[in-house]
Every structure is written in structure tokens, then in C-alpha cells.
């Protein structure tokens, strides 16, 4: 069972549908105890960082996620749910959870693509990864040329040992961040076709094999 954190952030049902299609049972909840009993926690997210953090603090779920990270419970943040794992976001001048060191910055409005065409913000569409850490459990069985679906105006800029994969939009930016058991992905695996489903399945497999979680 995976727990999907419900903090009014939009795309939790699409994450749920993708897990359903994989035959992975999940629960969408804002109840800390219920989420804690799950094998792994997914933090979805569409929207703005300021409001998201306000919601998490208001419900005490920020504490749950900090405890989960401290005790090595598997956590996967998606898009905004990935960004809030870091220290700080330029968006709404927001202090984040601080589970991964680094900041979220806004894409500049004057970026250009590799072929010289303007790169408008938000970065929206299908993009590839340049994988830095090939042994990452999330990437098992994924071809290096797989595309993932992105929609975002802010990008994460973590400390380099935490960069698992980068993507390119006007400049390289981090697409997967973290370390075994605590991950953030900037793209939407639930909307990224088969590679995205594979990544979610890999997360679940990791959760099932996780030794830190007493069943």
C-alpha cells in the first residue's frame, strides 16, 4: 500500500489512477497516522509553493514528511511535491521542508532551446533525461532515451551529489533529485506513458523491499 499525501494540491487522483493501472493499492489521505502505516509515501503536487507549504504546515503533514525522511521511510515527491523537499523556493519566497539541500528557481523568460528557438515558460512537454546516477532504483529497466512529461515554471537547483538525472531547457536543470529512499522527480510519471509507469512501479518495488519498514 502506498500513501498519497492529500494537501489540496491537485493531481493526487491522476497519481492514484496510474497506481491503479499498475495494480498497486494506494490511499489518498491527509491523515498522518494512515500515511505513516503505508509502505511508501508519494507527495503529488500542482500549484504554487507558498500555498502548498501553508497547507502542509496547517495540517501537520510537514512533520510527517520530515519524520519519514529522518527514519528512512521511502518518499517520492512529484513536480511541486519534489520542489518542496528542498530548502527554499523563489516562488512566493517560501521556506520549504529542507529534506534535500538546494533551492527552486524560476526559469528565465529569455531562454533559448539548443536550436536557438525561444524557450517559453512554463517548460511544458516531453523531454529526455541525462542520467548521472545509473544505479538509481527508480530508473531500473528504463531505456536512457525515454521521454517524460514536464509542466513547470520553477526548477530545482540542488547540491550536486543529490542530482540523479538532468534535463535540458535553455540550460541543464535537475529532473530527478535525492538518494535511495528519498526522491523527487520534476516531471509527471503519472502522465509519462510507459516509462513513467515503470518509474512508479520501481518506487513501489523499492518500498516493498525496504528493510527500514517493519511490516
Amino acid at each position, binding site marked *: 500500500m502506498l500513501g498519497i499525501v492529500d494537501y489540496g494540491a491537485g493531481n493526487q487522483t491522476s497519481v492514484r*489512477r496510474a497506481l491503479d493501472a499498475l495494480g498497486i493499492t494506494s490511499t489518498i489521505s491527509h491523515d498522518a497516522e494512515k500515511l505513516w502505516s503505508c509502505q511508501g509515501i508519494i507527495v503529488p503536487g500542482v500549484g504554487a509553493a507558498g500555498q502548498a507549504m501553508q497547507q502542509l504546515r496547517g495540517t501537520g503533514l510537514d512533520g510527517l514528511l520530515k519524520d519519514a525522511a529522518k527514519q528512512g521511510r521511502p518518499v517520492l515527491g512529484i513536480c511541486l511535491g519534489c520542489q518542496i523537499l528542498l530548502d527554499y523556493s523563489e516562488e512566493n519566497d517560501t521556506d520549504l521542508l529542507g529534506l534535500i539541500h538546494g533551492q527552486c528557481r524560476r526559469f528565465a523568460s529569455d531562454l533559448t532551446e*539548443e536550436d536557438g528557438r525561444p524557450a517559453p515558460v512554463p517548460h511544458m512537454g516531453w523531454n529526455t533525461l541525462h542520467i548521472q546516477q545509473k544505479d538509481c532504483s527508480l530508473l531500473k529497466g528504463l531505456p536512457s532515451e525515454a521521454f517524460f512529461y514536464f509542466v513547470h515554471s520553477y526548477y530545482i537547483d540542488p547540491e550536486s551529489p543529490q542530482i540523479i538525472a538532468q534535463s535540458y531547457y535553455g540550460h541543464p536543470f535537475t529532473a530527478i533529485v535525492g538518494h535511495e529512499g528519498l526522491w523527487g522527480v520534476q516531471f509527471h510519471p503519472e502522465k*509519462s506513458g510507459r*516509462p513513467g509507469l515503470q518509474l512508479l512501479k520501481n518506487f513501489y518495488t523499492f518500498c516493498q523491499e525496504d528493510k527500514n519498514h517493519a511490516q
Partner: protein
Amino acid sequence: MLSKRVIVCLDVRNGRLTKGIKFAGNQDIGDPVESARRYYEEGADEIVFYDITASAEQRGIFLDVVSRVAQAIFIPFSVGGGIACLDDMHAVLDAGAEKISINSAAVKNPRLISEGAREFGSQAIVVGMDVLAVEKTADIPSGYEIVIHGGRLHTGLDALAWAKQCQDLGAGELCINSIDADGTKDGYELTLTAAICAHVTIPVIASGGAGCPAHLLDALTRGQAQAALIASIVHYGQYSIAECKQYLADHGVCVRQTW
């Protein structure tokens, strides 16, 4: 690098596809959910559904289709037809669509674009425009006029000016449908597409006129569009999405290869 997109368009009436769709097995399928699944598996980057009845009593049937599609495909999809207010937008997004496509309603009430963008984000708002080539006048200096209600009603709006206005109001993407090219299978209206692309910075989807993969290549290179919309060339089994994408890849266009 961000890929160019191939988007498949499905017209839905009373919960069924309006035209039968022919797949490899010579099987005509009128179920939009099943068709969406097939195109998803074949490698469509996005799917757009138009509810072409959009009468109040049929709306529930269509929303049911949207929610069943959301359970079957794991790529973004948009929904258009009959969306005239924020409540309509809420309903299709709640049912599982990522984007809303508005056309005539945006012309009649441009605030719908800004209100939608504020409520759901620009990435969720696609403005569709039906464009007709006309004589250049002081009011329509580009020689391209926005028409609504399937081309029956002239608006007096210049397509370039309207495109810019939509962007300024917060549209995330524009879908440019040439009424002149639509249904001809002679290729997209490249002059129009390129003119719009040069005039705005948001992504532009070329629509109307695709007859073969070479037309997609033209739209994405000479036309400078970020995405090409296709319908009948794949619906009647003339080409597969995989063939279209392979052709684009062979000609140096960055497209998503499915795996």
C-alpha cells in the same frame, strides 16, 4: 531537448466517436475510450477530445467518457467543445483532463481565458482558433480572420492580433485551425502557422489539412509549430502514429520515441 508533439484529435457525439475508426485489424471502433487507449499505445503524445454535441443533457455522458479515458491513458489529454464558464472547466479537469480547449466561447468572452488561467494555470488553457484567409483590410491586416461556429460566423478579428491577445490574457497554447485547409488533406496552412508562431512565444499547434507524414514535417519545420494535430490520416488506418513519428525522426525532428 523538448520534443515536438503529435496530437490525435477525436470528435465525440453522444459519448461515441462521430466517425468510425479503422485500425489494423479492419475493425471499426466507435468507442472513444478504446480509441484513446489504442492511440496512447501507438505513441500519441497527447489526445484531444471534442464534444461536438455539447448539449446540456449529453454533457454527463461526455464527462463519463472523460473520466474513463483518464483511467485508460497515461499521457496528457485535453477536452474541448461546449466549455463556456469556469464551472465547465472544473468539470472536465475534475474528470481527469489536463487541459481545456476553448474556441468560440473565448472570442465571445475573452475574460474566460484570463479567469481560467488564474484558476487552473496557463498550462491548462488552450485556445483554439478557426482561421479563414480573407482580403487584407485595415481591420484585418494579416489577411487572416477569426471565424466561429465552425466557420459560419465572421468576427472581424485579425488572427495575429487575436493570437497575441490570447497570449497576453494567459493562454498556455494556441491551436491554429485553418478552415481553408481543413479536410483537404493537402497539408497544413504553413504561411498562417508560421505567421502566428513568429507573433507569439507560447506553443502553437498546427491543425487542419494533414494528409501524410510529410505534411507534419512541414508544419513542424517550415510552419515552426511545436505540435501537429492529426485526425483522419490515422483514423482511417492510412498511416499509423508510429509511421508519422518515424518519418519525422528520419528527417531530423526531435520526437518522442515510445518504448
